[in-house]
């Protein structure tokens, strides 16, 4: 019998939670050590997904399907393709890193924290593999709760409740509209085909009238756009990032935001392709605003975490821009950029976390000259910053280049505006770097800061490995997404062709 690899990967963290329940809550070392072990095992379990993945086919792989509520057409239906594979690997890859990063940071309610962390992992993985709309919605909502708790319980005492509630309400607001749209879709499919099912892949094929597509695209789109976050739904992000504990920010940036962009690829675009083509200008322009606006606002920030949060708005704008080009480089670049953002921005939040642990401040003005007491830290910070500003040879460049290349094909003006984001990125990152790391040590508290410990270096080593790997040999990763992207684009092109026919028909009638 074939091992249900995917289910093991999704539910192993939950098994881990049961194990944690039996451990002494006072013994932090054991709790953290066990969770680290669980995280490593989880990563190990997910490796077969990577190595046994067949990059030649766009079909879903590692598929598992069990009837759940057969009378409603609901099933436990999961699978992996080129769109989700990289995100799954990113999630399991970051799990042990996140646990390592809590070592000093989290000192109270450790047990609960670890439980939340594991539950969150499970929920996020579920979102990426679910192929049943109902199942997807369950995972989507489930993962909200542990994140809410991470911010609300372990966040910064001053404003954590405000940030947590803001995060929760924003997401809930979008999700409810999406739920309505899911139900509309369910009944529409049932009516037109006679089969009532939440099976996503079956729904891909169904013809939906344009006006329905229009509204359902917006309903799904709002939920995902809030998650991305796209301008102007981004204001929960700086608050959530600033108030969350380090690991919360890392997961939020690296994985949670990707659910928005992934949602567009997996749900919005293939389900409502004609509407997707229709909305290209709107979403591209929002993405462009995000790129430039995020970068400019980022430049002025005084708080390191807010600065990185706004830079996320800018980077995710690139991803959205790429996806909405519906070109090979644009979409592949968008996917790789999701991973890049996860690695670079995740690493940046870890970096801020490490100086926060030492100095208990995140204000840029409190630092300056850190390169002198912390040379190893400085080198790592530099590499990560350069990866974030898209220096060729590191990961960020590959994503941005492909996105811009695709965009240039579809719209030269969009590409030109977006490319200015590359200039601004250099401004805000290097200016921040200068104010934190360069100059003389002006604040006495900074003079004898300890450089990174071995544990901290171990956190960065795997991140840096992939930052360089993707930069130097991105084909390892691009190959995995190729077949799925080609299939997706073929589908989108077909939809466009039929849309043109429809709209010409419209014009004919109007006459």
């Amino acid at each position, binding site marked *: 019998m074939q091992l249900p690899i995917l289910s093991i990967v999704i539910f192993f963290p939950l098994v881990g939670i049961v194990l944690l329940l039996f451990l002494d809550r006072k013994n932090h070392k054991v709790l953290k050590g066990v969770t680290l072990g669980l995280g490593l095992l989880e990563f190990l379990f997910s490796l077969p997904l990577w190595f046994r993945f067949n990059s030649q086919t766009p079909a879903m792989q590692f598929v598992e399907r069990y009837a759940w509520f057969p009378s409603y057409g609901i099933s436990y239906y999961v699978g992996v393709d080129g769109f989700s594979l990289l995100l799954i690997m990113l999630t399991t890859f970051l799990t042990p890193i996140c646990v390592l990063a809590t070592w000093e940071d989290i000192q109270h309610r450790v047990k609960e924290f670890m439980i939340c962390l594991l539950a969150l992992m499970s929920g996020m993985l579920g979102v990426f593999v679910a192929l049943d709309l109902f199942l997807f919605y369950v995972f989507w909502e489930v993962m909200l709760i542990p994140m809410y708790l991470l911010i609300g319980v372990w966040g910064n005492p001053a404003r954590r409740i405000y940030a947590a509630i*803001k995060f929760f*309400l*924003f997401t809930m607001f979008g999700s409810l509209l999406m739920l309505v749209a899911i139900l509309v879709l369910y009944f529409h499919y049932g009516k037109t085909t006679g089969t009532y099912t939440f099976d996503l892949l079956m729904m891909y094929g169904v013809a939906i009238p344009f006006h329905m597509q229009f509204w359902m695209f917006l309903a799904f789109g709002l939920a995902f756009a809030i998650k991305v976050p796209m301008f*102007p739904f*981004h*204001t*929960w992000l700086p608050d959530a990032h600033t108030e969350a504990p380090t690991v919360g920010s890392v997961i939020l940036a690296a994985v949670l935001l990707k659910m928005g962009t992934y949602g567009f690829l997996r749900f919005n675009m293939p389900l409502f392709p004609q509407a997707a083509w229709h909305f290209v200008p709107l979403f591209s322009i929002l993405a462009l605003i995000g790129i430039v*606006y995020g970068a*400019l*606002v980022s*430049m*002025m*920030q005084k708080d390191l975490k807010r600065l990185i949060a706004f830079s996320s708005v800018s980077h995710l704008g690139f991803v959205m821009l790429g996806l909405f080009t519906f*070109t*090979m*480089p644009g979409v*592949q*670049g968008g996917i790789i950029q999701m991973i890049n953002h996860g690695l670079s921005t995740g690493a940046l939040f870890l970096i801020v976390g490490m100086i926060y642990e030492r100095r208990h401040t995140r204000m840029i003005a409190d630092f300056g*000259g850190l*390169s*002198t007491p912390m*040379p190893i830290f400085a*080198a790592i910070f530099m590499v990560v910053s*350069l990866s974030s500003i898209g*220096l*060729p*040879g590191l990961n960020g*460049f*590959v994503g941005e*280049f*492909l996105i*811009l*290349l695709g965009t*240039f*094909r579809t719209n030269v003006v969009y*590409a*030109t505006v977006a*490319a*200015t984001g*590359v*200039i601004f990125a*250099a*401004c805000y990152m*290097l*200016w921040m770097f*200068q104010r934190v*790391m*360069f*100059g*003389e040590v002006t604040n006495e508290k900074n003079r004898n800061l300890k450089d990174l410990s071995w544990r901290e270096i171990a956190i960065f080593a795997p991140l840096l490995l992939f930052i360089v790997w993707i930069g*130097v*040999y*991105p*084909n390892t990763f*691009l*190959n995995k997404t*190729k077949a799925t992207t080609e299939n997706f684009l073929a589908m989108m092109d077909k939809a466009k062709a039929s849309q043109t026919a429809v709209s010409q028909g419209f014009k004919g009638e109007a006459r």
Partner: protein
Amino acid sequence: MMMDYVWLIPLFPLVGFLINGFCGQRLPKTIVGIIGSGVIGLSFLVTVKIFLEFLSLPAGTKAVEKVVFTWITSGTFQAQAAFLIDPLSLVMLGVVTGVSFLIHIYSVGYMHDEPGFYRYFSYLNLFVFAMLLLVSANNFLLMFVGWEGVGLCSYLLIGFWYEKKSASDAAKKAFVVNRIGDFGFLLGIFLIFWTFGTVNLREVFALAAKYPVGSGVITAITLLLFVGAIGKSAQIPLYTWLPDAMEGPTPVSALIHAATMVTAGVYMVARCSALYSLAPLSLTVVAAVGALTAIFAATIGMCQFDIKRVLAYSTVSQLGYMFLACGVGAYISGIFHLMTHAFFKALLFLGSGSVIHGLHGEQDMRKMGHLKKYMPITYWTFLLATLAIAGIFPFAGFFSKDEILFHSLVDGKFIYWLIATTAAFITAFYMFRAVFMTFLGESRVDPQVHPHESPPVMTVPLMILAVLSVVGGLVGFPIIEGAHVFREFLSPAITPVAHAGGHQAVSFEVFMMIFSMAVAAIGIYTAYKFYILKPDLPTAIANRFPVIYDYIYNKYFVDELYDATIVEPIKAGSDFLWHGVDDKVVDGAVNGSAGVITWLSAHLRKLETGFVQNYALAILVGVVLITGYLIGR
């Protein structure tokens, strides 16, 4: 064949970077220096070997490409990690590895007391790696990797003394200004790919040949690429970062900001001669920008007192010459000047470094003078380089600069020639001004300071470069048929402009040479008069034309202009976006709607008092109202 291992050339410096970067802190300085310089020496040897192999290839072989691996594939787009060996890349590889090697050795002496010695050498190695990629890439994207890579190393090395605010400011400025140029380059690459379906240099050039002269898309591509060149090679209007870049250690200025990196733009234009030759408009822009920059920077150079800044403006000006050459279609003369300039300008910078080293950090020429006595080797080598840059026969600069002047008249316009000749006069003037103020005349050195000659590890590279500055121009000996070895070697790699100027009479060429020599000589004499015969004269003139002098001395206030019109408005605008738009409008709407709901619920809540009599009263009122309404209807 060594040619199959061409990737070794950039690999050696990369290995040096990794070794010194990771382990350098724990290694003794001697080892760090040997590794740092040794890897460049190895690259140089491989280059020489490949050069010899290339010469022995059967006639007609224009270029060899070696693919290492496929870097990025997406849809029809493909970029390889691959190298192009042709005369142009060989010249560049030779200049870069050769000059770098000498500067690395010099650095061992110059940076000896520096705590960040290993960091310096690892950055310098990384720079050479990126520069070698830039000049040997077989496609635009890999060239861009080198292009941004050298920009990064320039950033790291300008900001090498990161504790100094001015140094880290200058570093950031260099990076950001270069990024503005790179923005154009990047768009150019996109346009190239979507026009030709490839980014491979030779494939693009072959396909471009089918386009007519003056084609719009080629003009657009070449103009976008030239934006990149303007940034990297510090031309108007993006030159402002280069003078500030002098905050870096002096050998860095010699290597990056004189001999190699800043010439990348010239290399790129010459490399793309097949495209530029099809775009007369772009060529005019290149020539005009070059000519303007040449004279503009030269005038600023006249009034600077910091010896490195004089050289910096001189570099900007000389780069202008190279672009002028390319712009009139004399690409080979541009590359020729690039090479000779690499020799004599590296020498000038290293010489100034030797002076600064000998004076324990003093850079102001007003506090120098009569150093000839203490630093004879530095003096003589510096003088030779100055003669070369001034264009005195038979020094290297004479041949290359004279060619540019000649072509700017014959293939260009009279105005180009006039500007370039004027700039040549100014160049001779300010360079000899520097020599006189530094080495001759009265000593104005602080009595506390005891000047001394530098150790051999520094002076030997000076002497080698001096030899090159003297004889380096002979490879391009004019007039005699076949004596211009340089042109014969390079011409297979260059696509000339279709209607280049016809052949000129030899007597005319000779006349032009004598004329430009005379111009240089007058420049030198003027400097002699001003700074040796009548040292009070410059101050008198400055006092007589205070406005003009002030204007030039302050570099035409261009930095201030950019700050006021670009930097500050962007900052203010961004601040408005943050506080005005993000906080007030966007988040205001969010918190506002939350506020409305809170307000509504607070009031609605009052209805739910929990007292039965309240509810009963409400029911009664309701019944009365409805009954009343029904009756009154």
